[in-house]
């Protein structure tokens, strides 16, 4: 490991998820093994095969003032709420505007706005559209609004890599600080895609669980009975900071954002490459980038979405890449799959697992699939040992994106 490279640390966390409106309530629910998935009651539910989802536990309209909420798409609302939480959690750092950056993306962007605006345009005409329609639908809108809120001038970016977006954003933020472009970067992902068109489109891929009689048991990563993913919504944002900057201001440090590995399958637009080499190489690259050994990794927050194909390929990649018998979990069993928000919230969970030395159990894992050969936490949360540890958050996305972010104890 290069000894003179800038170390990047995590000083703030923010989330709004199907389990809670903030980090504390979400984390408590995860450790309790509660499900954030519920039956949908909207009138369109009869038109789609999957009739449940992970709706945000706290509606963003209850958090944001109405004049602000009305000019933001729902995915931007989640992002801004989580970013403000993370910023406050970090102690609202004093930082030169030109040294503060933002990297926050979304897998899909402002799709609710797009669809509602199209109805308005078609039924009432162009001049009835909100003048905020474009800023609400654009996938960099959340990053832009956060940069305005915080006065960030070191550069604002929006990664778009489907379900790897949140993790890729954090990876880019690490690089942004290392390269000297910023001292502090607000990074993560957000999604608000619970709309009948998305539910129908994912159903057209045969990707969603249709366990309509037991919604809270539908997201069951690694279980033999899994039949697809469950859509969730929300955002996860972290504040990353150069270690020197964090220490100079006496900030609490949750963990070190030690390394990132990014690969692409170059294989299929949605199906994972069967050998899992892309995910495995992403993990090994993150480990090398972090300057640690593979055996140091004692926990993995897996991407594992509860689809029949993906979970087993990832388990094999973990087994091949990580000889240290890491405790593996998929928190999607409780939150559902937040798409572009997944890597954001799951990085937050990985960081908390390290800092609190406890790994939430994978819910609904009643009958593990054959031949997994990794230590998946089930039933009850399990403790991590004392001493220096590393953990990895995996996030993979349609398009063949594989991102692994390695964190180490502070």
């Amino acid at each position, binding site marked *: 490991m290069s000894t003179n490279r800038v170390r990047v640390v995590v000083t703030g966390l923010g989330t709004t998820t199907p389990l809670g409106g903030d980090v504390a309530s979400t984390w408590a629910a995860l450790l309790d093994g509660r499900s954030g998935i519920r039956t949908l009651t909207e009138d369109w539910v009869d038109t789609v095969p999957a009739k449940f989802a992970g709706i945000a536990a706290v509606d963003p309209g209850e958090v944001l*003032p109405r*004049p602000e909420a009305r*000019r933001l798409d729902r995915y931007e609302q989640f992002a801004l709420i989580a970013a403000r939480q993370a910023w406050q959690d970090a102690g609202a750092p004093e930082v030169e505007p030109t040294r503060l950056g933002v990297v926050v993306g979304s897998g899909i962007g402002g799709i609710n706005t797009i669809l509602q605006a199209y109805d308005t345009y078609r039924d009432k005409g162009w*001049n*009835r559209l909100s*003048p*905020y329609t474009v800023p609400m639908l654009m996938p960099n809108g959340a990053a832009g609004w956060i940069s305005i809120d915080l006065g960030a001038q070191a550069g604002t970016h929006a990664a778009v890599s489907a379900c790897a977006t949140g993790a890729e954003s954090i990876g880019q933020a690490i690089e942004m600080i290392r390269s000297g472009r910023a001292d502090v970067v607000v990074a993560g992902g957000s999604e608000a895609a619970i709309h009948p068109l998305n539910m129908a489109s994912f159903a057209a891929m045969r990707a969603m669980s249709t366990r309509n009689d037991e919604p809270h048991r539908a997201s069951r990563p690694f279980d033999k009975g899994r039949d697809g993913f469950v859509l969730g919504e929300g955002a996860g944002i972290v504040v990353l900071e150069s270690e020197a900057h964090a220490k100079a201001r006496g900030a609490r440090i949750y963990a070190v954002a030690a390394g990132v590995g990014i690969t692409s399958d170059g294989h299929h637009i949605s199906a994972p490459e069967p050998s899992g080499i892309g995910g495995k190489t992403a993990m090994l690259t993150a480990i090398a980038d972090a300057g640690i050994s593979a055996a140091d990794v004692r926990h993995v927050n897996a991407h594992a979405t509860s689809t029949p194909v993906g979970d087993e390929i990832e388990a094999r990649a973990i087994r091949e890449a990580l000889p240290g018998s890491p405790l593996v979990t998929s928190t999607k069993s409780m939150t559902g799959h937040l798409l572009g928000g997944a890597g954001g919230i799951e990085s937050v969970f990985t960081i908390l697992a390290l800092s609190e030395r406890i790994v939430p159990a994978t819910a609904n894992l009643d009958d593990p699939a054959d031949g997994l050969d990794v230590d998946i936490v089930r039933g009850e949360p399990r403790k991590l040992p004392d001493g220096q540890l590393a953990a990895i958050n995996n996030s993979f996305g349609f398009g063949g994106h594989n991102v692994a972010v390695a964190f180490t104890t502070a």
Partner: protein
Amino acid sequence: MAATEQEILAGLGKIVNEITGIPASEVTPEKSFVDDLDIDSLSMVEIAVAAQDEFGAEIPDDQLKHLKTVKDVINFIQN
């Protein structure tokens, strides 16, 4: 019957509050939307469309840019 100046002012105050969060009591005739109330061009479009709905007076885009103050809008709607 045409709305009175007071009725239009009250209606505008409500619209501005709904769109921007500025208290309706701050929306007084002499105020400039941009300089005094800090309302940007996108929000002005929203306010103009809402005012059209409320008072039935269409404000063309080429007129909107001349309506600097609350009083200008009231006059436009009354005429």
